[in-house]
């Protein structure tokens, strides 16, 4: 939560008042963004940057976990009053579900062509676009583990030397960890997790718990979210991340426009803004992964174009996540 004012000002482009959508959007005056990504202060910052570019349009961000955001969306729909203009979720399955009920407005933002190639294709045929990339990498505590001893790839985590030393989240409580289990099981089979269980891992809830556990010294290596770890490391905490040599799990989070909302034009402008440079710069300033090649990554991270990434497809996630959760309970008992 330490926005560096300099980098932010530098990315602040000219206003977008010449956009053909602007007059209609300005008439609407505001838009509501249900966000399952980032945190509330950062969502507010994004909203303010948008208002600076498109004066007279206010953004009302409401940040929740993606599940809560969807539930709220569904309650609004049941009440016949679409509150959200724009919806962002970490779970692409939500978009499939909403689309099956014809609740999305297809829109391709012009700036979406500037995404790195790996993210450009992620658009559900023009229904949504990426707004955040959830990554899972290897993390370790630098006072307990030297770089040369640290695990370099996923299978290294199952090395018996990490007995009582490893921690990760649970697919039953974290969508991103869930996607990670699908990815790992596809590559290494479920034995990967059975081997991990022999190491007596400390299983937390979310993908972000790893940083806290590593900092406390209770464990020394982890599979976790590099963004929160880098943010903590930037303060001086003994955390570091390693991009696994065979590939980092990178799960894109989609944003879409809701049908029947009160500010359809402002919503389109906002989605365009989320595809632009300013937004990716705000992400980078806050240790999140920028989605465009023309924005440099945060300190300690690499650009999406430089690293090898992989992600199961939405269909694969939908098919395999449920059974994985069951297997997880059988293997880890939690």
């Amino acid at each position, binding site marked *: 939560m330490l926005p560096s004012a300099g980098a932010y000002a530098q990315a602040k482009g000219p206003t977008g008042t010449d956009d053909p959508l602007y007059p209609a959007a300005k008439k609407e005056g505001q838009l509501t963004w249900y966000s399952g990504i980032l945190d*509330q202060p950062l969502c507010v910052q994004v909203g303010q940057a948008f208002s600076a570019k498109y004066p007279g349009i206010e953004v*009302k961000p409401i940040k929740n976990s993606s*599940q*809560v955001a969807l*539930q709220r969306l569904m309650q609004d729909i049941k009440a016949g009053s679409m509150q959200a203009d724009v919806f962002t979720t970490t779970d692409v399955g939500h978009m499939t579900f909403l689309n099956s009920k014809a609740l999305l407005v297809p829109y391709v933002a012009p700036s979406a062509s500037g995404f790195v190639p790996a993210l450009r294709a992620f658009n559900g045929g023009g229904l949504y676009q990426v707004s955040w990339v959830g990554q899972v990498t290897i993390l370790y505590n630098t006072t307990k583990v030297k770089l040369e001893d640290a695990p370099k790839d996923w299978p290294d985590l199952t090395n018996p030397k990490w007995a009582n030393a490893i921690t990760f989240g649970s697919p039953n409580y974290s969508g991103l960890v869930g996607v990670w289990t699908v990815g790992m099981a596809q590559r290494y089979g479920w034995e990967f997790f059975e081997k991990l269980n022999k190491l007596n891992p400390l*299983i937390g809830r979310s993908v*972000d718990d790893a940083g806290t556990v590593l900092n406390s*010294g209770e464990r020394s290596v982890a599979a976790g979210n590099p963004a929160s770890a880098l943010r903590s490391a930037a303060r001086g905490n003994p955390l570091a991340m390693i991009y696994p040599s065979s590939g980092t799990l990178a799960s894109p989070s989609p944003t879409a426009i809701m049908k029947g909302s009160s500010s359809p034009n402002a919503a389109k402008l906002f989605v365009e803004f989320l595809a632009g440079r300013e937004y990716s710069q705000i992400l980078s300033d806050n240790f999140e992964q920028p989605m465009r090649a023309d924005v440099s990554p945060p300190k300690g991270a690499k650009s999406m174009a430089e690293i090898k990434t992989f992600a199961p497809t939405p269909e694969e996630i939908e098919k395999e996540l449920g059974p994985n959760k069951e297997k997880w309970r059988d293997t880890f008992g939690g």
Partner: protein
Amino acid sequence: MARTGAARPRVLRRVEPSTVAWLAALAALLFLVAVPVAKVVISSFQDTDTGAFTWNNYAVAYGHVRDYASLGTSLLYAAEVTVASIIIAVPIAWGVARTDMPCKGLVRAFVLGAFITPPYLGAIGWILLAGPNAGWINKVWMAVTGDAHGFVNVYSFGGLVVVTALYAFPYIFVFTADALERVSSEMEEAARILGAGHLRTILRVTLPLVTPAILGGAIVVFLDTVALFGTPAIIALPARIKVMTLVLWQFFEFPVRAEAAAAYAVPLVLITVTLFAAQRAILGRRGYVALTGKGGSRTLLQLGRWRWAIFGYAMLMVALSVLLPYAALAHAAFSRAWGRGFSLANLTLDNFKYLLLTDPAARLTIVHSFGYSAATACLAVALALCVAYIVSRRLVRHTAVLTALCMAPLVIPGIVLAIGFYSAWAPPPLALYGTAALLVFGFTARFLPIAYTNCMASLRSLNPEMEEAVRILGGSQLRAVTRVVVPLLKTSLIGSWLLVFIPATRELSTAIFLVGSNTRVISVMMLDLSENGSFETLAALGFFLLGVTILIVLAGYKLLGRDFMLRRS
């Protein structure tokens, strides 16, 4: 109880202005609690997509043997936490209320400090203390004994129970201390004159007189523990202990099955009603009236040297719940980077500066939380007092329904209740979307059970004859309540107020669903901080809350002064 039956015909005979007040209270209860709870119960029988009637949600919720096991684990967990909380709280309450124990204000302040500690933070504090690999206590143990392993493990059932009880016991403390302060010394003196020793007097006279209060507090702790998510998420999950709330959370993973979560909760409401029936059976027809119109006096028991023993016990307990965990957390709150260990170069006040000065949004969030919680506490206590009065003086029939209504919100998981609340009052006609009122009303519904239980326990100790005296002298029922009941129960009502205010400042599960873009509260901010890895700021926020609470409590007791029954000779 037996004499209050006379009140009903009187009410029926002529409509008093007070009747309007009761009707207003009932309307408020319907609005705040009955409608959202009914939404929850109804939704438990509805299909997610079509809304058609179905038993399927119950099949999903209770379809696995595993789920029964976790329900059993939850009940056992809650029972053990309740017993542990009684063991911690009752001696401290007795020491504070009835003896000449030193430093009472400080002990009280620390007890409420334990109460305001978010379970998440307390649990992390205890992981830092009793983590098997790196916990401070274990490191000291290994250094002293040379053992390769520590001797306490927070990741165990015992650890889970103790850590939960350390932050739940203040409920029982406040209930019991309030009640003990209202018991006059006459009966104790009689026991002493008849030759009973101190211990016998305490066990056979003092404690039985406050049984309703202890049981009331115990019920709240039990139900609160059954519904607790924070501590189990931090401790039970890594320890591979499955409690119900952890299972429940999984219904909110996609595909979201809020209806199944509602179905899971409905049997808990039945458990609550059963608990209240059990309470009534235990209390039976015995009299617990401690406050009569005849003027009691309360003398403090002179413990002599033993007062240091009870003080030591109280300090040991607050050390375990506040001093030690916060010492561990201090390390994070005052560090630039808490993972780097202790060093002068790492010391900083920046985390506090960020919260209080740098970030206007953080400041606003803190102001919101305290403001909403204060409004919630006022509303909940006023409503609870009205309803408890109606129920205890039997002013209407079917009081069991009112009790069930008042207690249901405690066991319905916060998020499920919040969904009921949101669907009832966020859309038009009220259209409370994103308003502060939505949060305040939601919190009021959520914490009404606590205020209600406390008001019931207090009213039980109050002899109705004083109110009857007002009526005989021509005063209205309203006057009897405002001029007799409220003044007599002043300290107890303040206790209720704190019992609502403090948990409201840390309430998360309801807040995450009801919060709007301009109504952010501390608990939601804490969740954000924990998720983005800013543990240093999070710990600082915990410290700030602790400090503010201790100041409020100390100032409150200074302002109120000694209670009216206490006459020092």
